[in-house]
């Protein structure tokens, strides 16, 4: 069978000693950083991104993917033990995981989270392998107009589906698009928005934006308020879940995986929304819904499965269409561009080692998470005992050196501070930062596709409506907007 031979090829790539080592390093570092409270996968990837610069493309992406699910898993550990999610995706895990920890059942909670994640990861990996090739083939039919409309739809969907105010999210997308345009214009060579700063000719770096927008903002927000932390470190001796735990959680895991896989593909949703939806579903169908929020094991298994499945299927649109469905995929896409690979359907044919190697390494990474993290849980717990007043200066220091190391230029460090200040102000005014990242990555691509489409149609904008696929995406965009905005308008304006 085709898929089997492809997967075998992928495992061949992933099992090379070098790639295995990078996968391991990524998972370990990702977990290490993800465990720190208030530091999610985005910041982890943003901070460690420069480390992968010098690696060959396959190894770099394998390591980044490892950091991604390592950090995701680390975040769950933190939610269970400290009731302080490292990122939104594990916020739901807090509800029951933390209650289990308070009842002295932190061990089984962690174990079930790991097993559910692993199961979901396996299914997710398989789905990518199955759905990837046909999707990529379909995407080869896309012209410039289709790509532009598809990106428009992805951006609007990401703004609409992100938690928070839709109009403000759309504004953030546009700010991101503008930030992405900084630097020399590819077509004419005009330096745009560089304000005479030579270092800006290549555009604003990826790490600058992510670290400024997420790490700086997060640290400052944490310092606004008083530190309240309660770490449950007693009773982690028994890791093994009981037979009843496994029985109770197995179907929840399967349902979580299904919901997560579906949501992961949709733009703008990703792990956070899927874990939330799964939790609601579990609560709805439970015989005794009152158990939820008081340490129900399904409440840990289902969201953990969902966010891990979504984390995997997130890769599908990015790897096959070149469209990131979440801020993290935007980052991964940026990493590919830095490595000189244009994300899109041609990746599978031109860089099959990258595509299949990455997929295989995801499975290996998920396995590593289980065998590595359960025994190491003691170390992660001791990390949680480090007071925040030691932690945050160290995080800031790593951010500084991370930014500097990319171009050995202080300008990147100053820019990061500037983005941090702007980001903090915007986040304080309750504007979601994630849509900005998507805009930032897609900005230059969208402009390029828009130009190409308009050039081919001789300046006739109707090309976006006359080509059927493009029309479908435009209609999709309008529908998404209409569905989300209509109720809001009706509620506020009194329009019947």
């Amino acid at each position: 069978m085709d898929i089997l031979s492809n997967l075998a090829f992928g495992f061949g790539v992933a099992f090379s000693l070098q790639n295995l080592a990078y996968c391991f390093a990524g998972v370990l570092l990702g977990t290490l950083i993800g465990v720190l409270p208030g530091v999610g996968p985005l910041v982890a990837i943003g901070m460690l991104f420069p480390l992968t610069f010098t690696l060959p493309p396959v190894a770099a992406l394998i390591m980044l993917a490892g950091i991604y699910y390592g950090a995701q898993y680390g975040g769950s550990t933190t939610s269970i033990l400290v009731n302080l999610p490292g990122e939104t995706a594990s916020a739901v895990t807090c509800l029951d995981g933390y209650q289990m920890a308070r009842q002295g059942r932190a061990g089984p909670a962690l174990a079930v989270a790991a097993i559910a994640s692993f199961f979901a990861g396996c299914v997710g990996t398989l789905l990518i392998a199955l759905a990837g090739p046909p999707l990529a083939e379909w995407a080869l039919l896309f012209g410039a107009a289709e790509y532009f409309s598809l990106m428009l739809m992805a951006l609007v969907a990401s703004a609409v589906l992100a938690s928070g105010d839709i109009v403000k999210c759309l504004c953030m997308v546009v700010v991101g698009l503008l930030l992405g345009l900084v630097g020399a214009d590819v077509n004419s060579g005009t330096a745009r928005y560089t304000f005479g700063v030579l270092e800006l000719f290549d555009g604003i770096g990826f790490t600058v934006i992510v670290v400024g927008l997420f790490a700086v903002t997060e640290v400052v927000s944490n310092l606004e308020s008083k530190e309240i932390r309660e770490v449950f470190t007693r009773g982690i001796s028994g890791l093994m879940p009981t037979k009843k735990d496994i029985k109770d959680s197995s179907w929840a895991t399967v349902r979580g995986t299904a919901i997560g896989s579906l949501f992961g593909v949709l733009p703008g949703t990703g792990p956070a929304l899927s874990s939330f939806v799964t939790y609601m579903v579990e609560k709805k169908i439970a015989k005794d819904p009152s158990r939820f929020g008081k340490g129900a094991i399904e409440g840990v298994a289902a969201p953990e499965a969902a966010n891990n499945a979504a984390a995997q299927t997130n890769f599908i649109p990015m790897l096959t269409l070149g469209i990131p469905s979440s801020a993290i995929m935007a980052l991964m896409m940026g990493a590919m561009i830095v490595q000189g690979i244009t994300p899109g359907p041609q990746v599978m044919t031109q860089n099959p080692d990258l595509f299949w190697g990455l997929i295989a390494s995801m499975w290996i990474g998920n396995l590593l998470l289980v065998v590595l993290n359960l025994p190491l849980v003691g170390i992660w717990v001791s990390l949680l005992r480090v007071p925040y007043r030691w932690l945050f200066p160290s995080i800031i220091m790593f951010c500084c050196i991370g930014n500097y190391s990319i171009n050995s230029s202080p300008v990147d460090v100053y820019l990061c501070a500037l983005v941090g200040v702007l980001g903090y102000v915007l986040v304080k005014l309750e504007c979601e930062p994630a849509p900005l990242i998507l805009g930032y990555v897609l900005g230059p691509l969208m402009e390029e596709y828009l130009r190409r489409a308009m050039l081919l149609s001789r300046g006739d904008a109707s090309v976006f409506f006359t080509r059927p696929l493009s029309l479908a995406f435009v209609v999709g965009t309008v529908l998404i907007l209409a569905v989300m905005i209509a109720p809001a308008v009706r509620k506020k304006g009194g329009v019947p």
Partner: protein
Amino acid sequence: MGLLANRDFLAGLVFVLIGVLAVAVARDYPMGTAMRMGSGYFPTVLGGILVLLGAWVMARGLRSREPVKGEWGWKPLAFIALAFVLFGLLMPRLGLVPALAAAILASALGGREFRTKEALVLAAVMSAFTAVVLLVVLKMPYPLVARVLWIS
């Protein structure tokens, strides 16, 4: 409630300002035509959209009057920005270790409580550790402590 505490009014204002800046700067770039877009076309359109959306957010803020939640963390923000600036200034001039230590000390000053001894120990340990990782493990070509300017 003053406008300065109005959450959406302020957010909209920030967006309008960014949009105006984007359009104003893009005036210097060739617009081109819809068929052959110049480098000013896309940014001008985006800036315009941002101004409109931002104005909408502002108007909504005037009506809803949602206040900004919680205190502004200007102090931590200022010290963390200072940490970045100090790092950028010191790194090329004095070398890795002084720059790292300065970044740690400056950001520690922005914390809820500052314990001098602890911060000094933290700066010493973390900068030494990071220097070892960067120079020995990753073999980055940075000067550990640069020679003083006038000698080099």
